[in-house]
């Protein structure tokens, strides 16, 4: 168990709802959930969730911390915002799901080999490098995210698409070298780092 996770278990003594409210993005809004289940029924990937959003909320209330922090359910969120649009109680479901995924990660509990978790980290790393996303590099790193051999296979499989995209001038091989970005990537990275530090301090209870 990570130190932070251990610390949180001790801090909240089984009051998982409070832990979520304090540390998960828009977590406060889930208090008003009335268990109607519209969110679960509205989710395009609903059937793929081990615990659909309604159940996640119920588990949180029931204090089932392990169940919630060990599932990869919320990594199925496509950010379609159907749930938020339809929730009669204004629960910011999409954001809470994102927040739970992030929190799980911060606690060192992110599921191993979760494709969306991996991809989204690659995406963020790519973004932070230059301040903008380099689709070519992101695509390539995506292909290789499951190892070199797997990557070659994926790359070959997607070769046709890649060629077509280049032909349509929607993929630029020159992006491989340098590529576009903000003028001061180092400053950008410093800014992001500062934001991360502030957020970590808040979660750890070290208010700045």
């Amino acid at each position, binding site marked *: 168990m990570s130190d932070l996770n251990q610390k949180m278990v001790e801090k909240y003594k089984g009051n998982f709802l409070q832990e979520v409210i304090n540390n998960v993005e828009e977590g406060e809004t889930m208090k008003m959930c009335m268990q109607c289940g519209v969110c679960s029924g509205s989710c395009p990937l609903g059937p793929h969730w081990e615990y659909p959003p309604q159940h996640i909320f119920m588990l949180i209330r029931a204090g089932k911390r392990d169940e919630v922090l060990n599932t990869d359910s919320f990594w199925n969120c496509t950010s379609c915002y159907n749930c938020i649009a339809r929730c009669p109680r204004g629960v910011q479901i999409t954001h809470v799901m994102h927040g739970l995924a992030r929190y799980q990660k911060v606690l060192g509990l992110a599921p191993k080999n979760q*494709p969306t978790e991996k991809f989204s980290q690659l995406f963020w790393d790519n973004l932070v490098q230059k301040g903008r996303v380099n689709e070519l590099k992101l695509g390539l790193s995506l292909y290789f995210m499951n190892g070199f051999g797997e990557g070659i296979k994926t790359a070959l499989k997607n070769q046709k698409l890649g060629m077509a995209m280049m032909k*349509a001038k929607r993929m630029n091989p020159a992006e491989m070298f340098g590529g576009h970005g903000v003028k001061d990537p180092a400053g*950008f990275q*410093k800014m992001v780092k500062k*934001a991360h530090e502030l957020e970590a301090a808040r979660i750890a209870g070290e208010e700045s």
Partner: protein
Amino acid sequence: MAHEYSFYPGCSSQKGASGSNQMVSNETMCDKLDIKLNAIDDWNCCGASVGYSGGGELARLTISARNIAISEKQHPDQDLIATCPACWLATRETQERLHDDPQMMSDANKALAEIGVEYQGIKKPARHMTEVLVEDIGFDGIAKPVTKPLEGLKIAGYVGCQSNRPYGIAGESFENPMYLDKMSEAVGAEALTGYEKKASCCGGALMFSEQEKSQALVKEIIEAAYDHGADMIMTPCAMCQMNVEAYQSDINEKYGTKFDIPVVFYSQVLSVAYGSTASEAALDGQLIAPKKLIDIANK
């Protein structure tokens, strides 16, 4: 008098990026509608829909706050607009979140201080390009420059998610937004208003990580368009465009379907109706050629 806006292009709409056909056709369209877009200099990525994972809340809001702050400095009196729904959503969400949470605002400014930028708070909510068309230009205004009415063209208006939820266009419903249909009709095409997948999710960024699940969603979106006899699918979103267009051969392979339906941006459709050439409308940027639209453009 030209309408003038501060413009946030975003990563995928850059030249040579997956949505460059949107960028090109949008420029053409704006030209015809006398809309002037002043791109903000030195913008950064919005974090898109999966930025939450690596970025968390504060970093994600901070990077968008940087864009807004730059826009306000460079084009102080102009509305900030985006063509990409994700860019728009992230920007507008940042404005709201920082407005509602003073602690978050102060933290974001602490991070921004590292590069000497200050975010001063919400002035006017960021807007999406379609809001500009619907609200500032109006459907009559959209119809005005038409020189080649797109008669007989059946268009399934695929609004998708993020231009529609959670904010959407004022006056539209989340479940059955009509603005794309009205645009189609304004330029003389036939809008397939009953297209029931118009606001369904294409899988978004999960197309990269969860291809099978996402392609199952896309299959439904395409199938419904065929069911309604669509000649093409029209969308405002670069992610939707890419996801629905690029994987049709994969889907055909998996499901034994024979999908081959063009997926275009509304800016491409409007450009053609306004008399632009196929390349001005970036129709050469399609993976599946929108033949009927090309024919009209070449007429």
